[in-house]
């Protein structure tokens, strides 16, 4: 996932796969973004939330076109959101 790669936020929910902890904002699930940069590797929150040993996983800053998300807003405005690699899928 190098900068510029297009990605989709997985439309993943505890209601469909059972108890889990997904820290992607709901307004982004299933939405397209572009990788801005790798921010480092951090312990997986899905394991931290259940007090399990947590491997360090890659965290990315992902950019989303703001008007596309809401069908309103100013062209060129964007959202920049920290999302772990395993919550993203290739497009």
């Amino acid at each position: 996932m190098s900068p510029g790669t297009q990605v989709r936020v997985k439309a993943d929910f505890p209601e469909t796969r059972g108890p889990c902890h997904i820290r992607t904002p709901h307004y982004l699930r299933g939405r397209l973004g572009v990788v801005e940069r790798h921010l480092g590797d951090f312990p997986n929150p899905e394991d931290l939330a259940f007090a399990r040993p947590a491997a360090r996983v890659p965290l990315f800053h992902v950019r989303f076109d703001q008007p596309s998300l809401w069908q309103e807003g100013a062209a060129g405005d964007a959202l920049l959101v920290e999302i772990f690699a395993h919550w993203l899928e290739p497009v």
Partner: protein
Amino acid sequence: MHAASPESQALLARLTAALIAKGVTTDAEIAAQIASTNRASPEIGARMVARAWTDPDYRALMLRDGSAAAEAMGVSMAGMPPLGVLADTPGLHHVVVCTLCSCYPRAVLGYPPGWFKSSSYRARMVRDPRAVLAEWGTVLPAEVALRVVDSTADYRWMVLPERPAGTEGWDAAQLAAIVTRDALVGVSLPQP
């Protein structure tokens, strides 16, 4: 800040007693963390911005490693999440929100204001950011692009605003005085 209810105080007391009994933390550690958080204030972030405006090497350090830039101002970042710094340019402005909770760069800004934690700020800033900014009196020209930074994970974010015109020749103390708490998360702009 409103006072905690007796119920929540009692819950907190039971939680800390359990954590201490399990050896997760100690009274001394909790006291040290409270003292460190109480010492932090937006003046730290303002001094960092003023120095970045007057010292190109410091600005480069701040953008490369915000935590190291905070340490260079005497702030202990031990045990704190990494600090990320978002540099405005003449054509780009940043504003910070945390839609999932209320992540805030406490090490360099102190406690978050109530509005930062409110559900209305958190919901509206990602959906209609220019209108929310306008309510602060921050009206961005159409040619300035806006980036709303939703703080959802391990970083804490602060904004490095543009140095305003009319501050030529000012020293770091004069510059720091115009960098407000609100400017450090991007809801307002420094005014000379």
